[in-house]
């Protein structure tokens, strides 16, 4: 990589975009104008909303007790000397109820019988376009006033008491709103009434409020609600703006360049593909960051100046102030890796697109795929932990949320995994983009009419000896999805005690391993490849393969103690939930009834064969067409890990998957991989049965095991032997690494390419002097 070239390309792309009015507008113009405009619109809409007073009718005003006051009446003299009385809720009542909206109140004084009101209420509400009716039944006033002298009528029962009624229609939006407000007002009025009655009966009013709950907040810094809100909405802003901010320039820089025919000019120049990708990536990142920052600033500005004006109920609840300065710093720091990730993704996708139009179609799916990752941190009761820190995109949002909430200790703990995962994702996306740039069928593909039949014929016609990377990837997804899709049919039945009995367990293992893993890959290999033996690397009569089997077995034995340490470490750092532990225990409960050979057959031999055929067979062979040996091994290891379903098993499985993949590639055969897997699983189970009791039965174990307890699985090995095992593992890995692996055509090409010296000498010599006309 020549950074001068990268800088040159970056500068050109930036200038190019700056000269494009559309890009400038979408990056700078839109955010600067959008939010203030939105704010203004909100303001206007709110005015509309407030302009509608609630239309209310009060029936039976005479039945309302005079004190405490519910309505205030004002009398106006008309021109013809008649008087009109208008009613409003008492000012203080509205204040204590926290209601700011206005009411349009009609009043009918006469006391009306309850049955009449019930019959006519619906029609009245609809015909006169009222939002609500408050009805005071006959006898209400009398009853209320009687309470003011309560001691006289204590014996009266509580049944059939005349109570006021609030009549609304909840299916109507405005009526529903009116109901809420009126309830609050009536509630306050009721409180007033109680106070008044108590006073009238000479009861101290404190007895209704015997104590108030004292609170003591021990956090160092009170939670800044405004920054909390920003931490919550940050993921949305960043994902939407970092992604769209990256996407449009990316399309112009890649698909657009293809369309305008300048890509071939650039490709024939001496800039390496990786330099082109780096330059373009940095340009896209610049735009992505600029878009996000401008949007954030514009939003903050609007929040301060426009939302503040709205006032009323809304602003009080939202507390949508500008974010505090120190949290802006964190925001900006987190923005950089997020923008890098999205830019790399956008770049790869935009390179894949044949035209700008096609490129724009990809934006929405990309946004949708990111949505679950964005929503997760916003959900209540989720927080930064080891598990969540491993989720791409979400992890970064969690980290930011934690930082903004001021929990620096937690943030520091998970800082490394979050960054590692993000960096890994960025690396994958960049690699993908570079591969797209190296792939001429992507760079020069022309629009073809798509025809499913023709495509299927092509897939059949162009079958290779081993599956294609895309085929291997699809297979991996299918293997992961199958158990979920069919879980209804294969889930074993538990017996009455919630235990799994032995026959069910055997059946479950067989269907799971053979039906859902081995069968699909073998069928796919038969259909989609030309050579089953090459796909699964079924090479036995070969020096390397034969030598590989004992080496793999020895390596599995040497690595066994470390496998246990790894499991323990993971178990400690990400403890399994109680629920999961119980489920696992009930699953394995059935093993007690099985003979020892059956347990080994089922948990060591069976998975070793089935999973190896899938992961180191089909998936690894397919991925090796990518051209990078270790990329292929890593991808197959990740699928292998995910196949285990439970996070605590997936992580060690993925790590050991790397080792098994390495063995399979170097030995050029699947059999050493199967041997490694089988021995590894067997040893884990064998270790699981070592207890104080077994030690007594088999005294020879004393040399091997140094400490042991009654609980299975807690035995520890002789540290001296463990050290020897470590040494042995290093030696064996060294021997295996020296074996010549059989490289795929693509891998040989990549090797040759990486060995080419890059030509960076000074300018070519001038032999011909300066030509002149």
């Amino acid at each position, binding site marked *: 990589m020549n950074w001068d070239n990268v800088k040159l390309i970056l500068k050109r792309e930036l200038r190019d975009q700056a000269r494009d009015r559309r890009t400038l507008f979408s990056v700078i113009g839109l955010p600067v104008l959008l939010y203030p405009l939105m704010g203004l619109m909100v303001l206007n809409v709110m005015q509309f909303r407030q302009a509608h007073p609630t239309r209310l009718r009060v029936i039976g005003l005479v039945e309302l007790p005079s004190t405490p006051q519910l309505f205030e009446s004002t009398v106006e003299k008309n021109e013809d000397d008649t008087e009109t009385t208008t009613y409003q809720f008492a000012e203080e009542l509205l204040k204590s109820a926290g209601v700011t909206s206005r009411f349009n109140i009609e009043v009918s004084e006469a006391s009306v019988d309850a049955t009449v009101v019930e019959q006519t209420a619906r029609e009245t509400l609809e015909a006169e376009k009222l939002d609500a009716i408050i009805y005071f039944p006959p006898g209400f006033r009398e009853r209320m006033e009687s309470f003011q002298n309560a001691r006289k009528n204590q014996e009266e029962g509580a049944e059939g008491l005349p109570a006021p009624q609030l009549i609304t229609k909840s299916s109507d939006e405005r009526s529903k709103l009116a109901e809420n407000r009126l309830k609050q007002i009536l509630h306050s009025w009721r409180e007033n009434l109680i106070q008044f009655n108590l006073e009238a009966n000479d009861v101290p009013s404190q007895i209704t409020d015997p104590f108030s709950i004292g609170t003591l907040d021990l956090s160092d810094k009170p939670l800044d609600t405004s920054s909390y809100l920003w931490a919550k909405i940050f993921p949305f802003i960043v994902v939407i703006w970092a992604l769209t901010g990256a996407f449009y320039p990316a399309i112009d820089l890649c698909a657009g360049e293809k369309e*305008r025919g300048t890509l071939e000019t650039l490709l024939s120049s001496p800039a390496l593909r990786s330099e082109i990708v780096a330059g373009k990536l940095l340009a896209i990142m610049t735009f992505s960051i600029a878009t996000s920052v401008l949007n954030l600033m514009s939003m903050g500005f609007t929040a301060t100046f426009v939302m503040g004006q709205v006032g009323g109920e809304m602003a009080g609840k939202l507390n949508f102030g500008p974010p505090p300065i120190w949290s802006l710093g964190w925001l900006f720091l987190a923005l950089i890796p997020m923008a890098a990730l999205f830019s790399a993704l956008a770049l790869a996708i935009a390179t894949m697109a044949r035209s700008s139009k096609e490129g724009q179609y990809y934006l929405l799916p990309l946004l949708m795929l990111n949505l679950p990752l964005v929503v997760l941190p916003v959900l209540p009761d989720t927080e930064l932990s080891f598990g969540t820190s491993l989720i791409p995109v979400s992890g970064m949002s969690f980290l930011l949320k934690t930082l903004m909430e001021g929990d620096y200790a937690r943030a520091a703990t998970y800082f490394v995994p979050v960054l590692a995962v993000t960096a890994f994702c960025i690396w994958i996306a960049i690699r993908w983009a570079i591969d797209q740039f190296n792939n001429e069928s992507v760079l020069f593909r022309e629009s073809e009419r798509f025809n499913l039949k023709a495509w299927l014929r092509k897939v059949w016609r162009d079958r290779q000896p081993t599956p294609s990377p895309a085929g291997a990837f699809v297979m991996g997804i299918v293997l992961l999805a199958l158990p979920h899709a069919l879980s209804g049919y294969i889930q074993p039945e538990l017996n009455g005690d919630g235990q799994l009995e032995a026959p069910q367990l055997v059946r479950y293992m067989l269907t799971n391993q053979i039906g859902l893993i081995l069968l699909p890959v073998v069928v796919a290999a038969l259909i989609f490849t030309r050579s089953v033996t090459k796909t699964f690397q079924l090479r036995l009569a070969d020096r390397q393969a034969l030598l590989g089997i004992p080496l793999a077995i020895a390596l599995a034995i040497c690595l066994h103690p470390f496998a246990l340490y790894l499991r323990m470490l993971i178990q400690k750092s990400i403890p399994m939930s109680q629920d999961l532990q119980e489920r696992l225990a009930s699953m394995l409960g059935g093993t007690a009834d099985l003979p020892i050979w059956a347990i080994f057959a089922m948990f060591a031999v069976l998975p070793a064969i089935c999973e190896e055929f899938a992961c180191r067979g089909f998936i690894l062979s397919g991925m090796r067409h990518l051209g990078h040996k270790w990329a292929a091994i890593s991808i197959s290891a990740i699928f292998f890990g995910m196949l285990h379903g439970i996070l605590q098993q997936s992580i060690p499985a993925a790590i050991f998957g790397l080792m098994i993949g390495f063995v399979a590639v170097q030995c050029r055969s699947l059999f050493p991989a199967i041997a490694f897997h089988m021995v590894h699983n067997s040893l884990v189970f064998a270790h699981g049965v070592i207890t104080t009791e077994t030690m007594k039965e088999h005294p020879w174990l004393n040399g091997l095991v140094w400490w042991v307890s009654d609980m299975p699985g807690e035995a520890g090995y002789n540290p001296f032997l463990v050290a020897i095992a470590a040494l042995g593992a290093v030696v064996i890995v060294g021997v295996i690494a020296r074996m010549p692996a059989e490289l795929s055509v693509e891998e040989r090409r990549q090797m040759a390419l990486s*060995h*080419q010296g890059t030509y960076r000498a000074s300018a070519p010599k001038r032999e011909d002097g300066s030509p002149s006309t």
Partner: protein
Amino acid sequence: MIHVRDLVKSYDDLQLGKFTAVDHISFYAMPGEIFGLLGPNGAGKTTALRILSTVLEPTSGTVKISGYDVTTEPAMVRHRIGFMSANTAVYDRMTAWEMVEYFGRLYGLPDEELHERMEELFHRLGMREIRDVLGAKMSTGMKQKVSIARALVHDPPVLIFDEPTLGLDVFVARALVQLIAELRDQGKCIIFSSHIMREVEKLCDKVAIMNRGKILAEGTIDELRTQYGQPDLEELFFHLIGEPDGIAN
């Protein structure tokens, strides 16, 4: 200088299946020589030249340019060639000067030398008036000039021109043909593809006639004339290729 041996390029096509665009072609060209590829549209000329300029990779066969292999040492090859074709467009939002300067810098030319060289090229190609014109505002002829300046800026020993006169008016085309002849006289090794007989006849020292991915005949124009007993190149061309299908019916 340029050695092409058994070059094959085949594509996967959804409808047609395997499609061989370039079918086992071999030729070589030396410095101070213009090698012409003559053939109808779709003969595989552009594909062959794209492979020579490292934009595409061959399916099989070898191409060596100044001793460097295009598949395994593409970076070395790119420094030694100037490539220009109908598909190597100029950037819309760059001026002529910026465009040439940009590529000159990608070739690693130091600023002083680059600017000296650019002044000279702009003068020679008569591009001074369009120096600060954006690509989007240029005519086809202007764009072609910028492309030529871009291909020549690093003074490469090998030049690959794929139908360079396509869409140009006679004046510009004539000037271009003269320029190419001059470049040959300076000792450049030039590959030139065209479907226009007169240009080929006028310029090329050696010619290969291509159709459907294959080279049908190769040699100097005089050799071909005597070999096929046909003094007129155009007649010779039709004789070799046969009546084009499509128009005959």
